[in-house]
């Protein structure tokens, strides 16, 4: 059975950086399909197609072997802890996972709070940091627009990804601590990679080559 090989590409911030990097390479995404609402996009290589997925869903598609390869942020990987192979740090999409609070609020101010509330999409990384710092806090789980939480009193601070800091600045927030760093990673389905390395490794090398060819 010679099935089409699927690569899972992220939508959103990472996808916006990735798609131009692939233009003109053997894994360039079909422009007409990209403009449509289709989520399975042919590439310039016959027999290889891309799935466009939300970052939080992407690791599941790869772990289940639906997609053989994928590109996802290391922050998502660390948060989900799926059984995946992580073949390379692709370098792009670099950002920080930071504790951010309203301007004028320091880390010591947050430490001193008897009941600290932190809003985040990253509860696992936040809990690990709190344990390391010997702090306790109430975690407020959010799935988007975390910047609003300190402004509207939902939380004292947030733990979120910061790339340029522009969104933070626009909301009057500042970074008070860096919890970790994130970048795009090439991931592979363990089963596909170990049982069919002759099919999957060349595809991984093609993808790495396509991304390296760009300045």
């Amino acid at each position: 059975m010679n099935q089409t090989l699927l690569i899972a590409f992220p939508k959103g911030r990472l996808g916006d950086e990735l798609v131009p990097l692939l233009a003109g390479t053997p894994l360039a995404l079909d422009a007409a399909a990209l403009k449509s609402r289709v989520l399975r996009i042919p590439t310039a290589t016959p027999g290889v197609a891309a799935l466009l997925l939300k970052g939080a869903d992407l690791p599941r598609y790869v772990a289940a072997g639906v997609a053989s390869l994928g590109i996802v942020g290391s922050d998502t990987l660390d948060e989900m802890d799926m059984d995946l192979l992580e073949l390379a740090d692709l370098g792009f999409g670099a950002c920080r996972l930071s504790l951010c609070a309203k301007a004028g609020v320091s880390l010591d101010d947050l430490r001193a709070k008897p009941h600290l509330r932190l809003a985040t999409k990253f509860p696992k990384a936040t809990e690990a940091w709190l344990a390391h710092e010997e702090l306790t806090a109430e975690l407020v789980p959010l799935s988007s627009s975390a910047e609003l939480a300190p402004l509207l009193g939902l939380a004292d601070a947030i733990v979120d990804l910061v790339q340029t800091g522009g969104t933070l600045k626009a909301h009057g927030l500042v970074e008070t601590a860096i919890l970790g760093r994130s970048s795009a990673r090439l991931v592979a389905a363990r089963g596909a990679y170990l049982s069919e390395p002759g099919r999957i490794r060349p595809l991984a090398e093609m993808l790495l080559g396509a991304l390296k060819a760009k300045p």
Partner: protein
Amino acid sequence: MAVRTPHFPDLLFNSAARLRRWEGALMGLLADHGYRELHPSLVLRETPPEGALRFFDGDELVALRWDFTVALAGLLTRTFPAPPDRVAYAGAVFRRPVQPWEAVERFEVGCERIQPEGEPAAEADVELARLLMAVPGLLGLKSAILHLGNAALVRRPLEAEGLFGELADAVVAALSRRAPHRVREALDGHPSAVRLTTHAEALLSELDGPGTLSALAASPYAALLEEERNHMDRALKALLPILPPNLELRVDLADVAGLGFYTGPTLRLWAPGAQQELAAGGRYDRLFPGLGRPWQAAGFCVRLSRLLDLAATRPDLFEEPR
């Protein structure tokens, strides 16, 4: 990952018949090679471990057999002053699933080769690999891949560097992900960082036939691991001439699955396109000494539940049953 709804699949007609046929064929193979069947009780006698399926019978906490190797070890140490040298088992184990698609009840067939501590073990390792090589043909798999690894390739350098606990776990997790960059991240600032990262890169550089062993030459621990390399080399020389058609032999230097349990050579059976390994095993010389018996052991387990799933989802990978 927490799984809220355990998966208890029933086996209907064809699957039930296939399970009975496969169990019979595999147990026949093992019996032909001197492996005698033991059937440890379905109810665990030992303290219920975390991963077992536990429930209350009145006021008493009960757990079902969750792992044959552990259950057999209990039975053997309770029953025999000197162990039988070859034992086999077949049946179900019950384990809490880690991934949502895993069933709670899992059917397995396996075997164990047990020797007094200190006896040469290389021949036993090759014997088990030869037996596992016969399994794909018996199950009707059109093609399969046998991965040979060795847990000592990672364990010994970590021990030599005095790396234990969380840091060692982080290195093993990175190798399990086949991510040398994660090894570098985990060891940032540690005196062994460069050596262990170079070692990880060497282990991960190839996943191929016997030539893969030469990648060990690039490791800073090449001299430390000479005995393991020679052992793998001898095993390959014994196995390659008798390799059945449609079975490929690959060397996976970075096999770290079960590193806390395995102490030496490891075996993993795959089918092209399968998402999970179909059989796994290796040498685990610390199990019996940990139970107070000076015995060394190796074995493998064929995961029949995974094979049944594969036969249902990818029938093209199997020959038509005769």
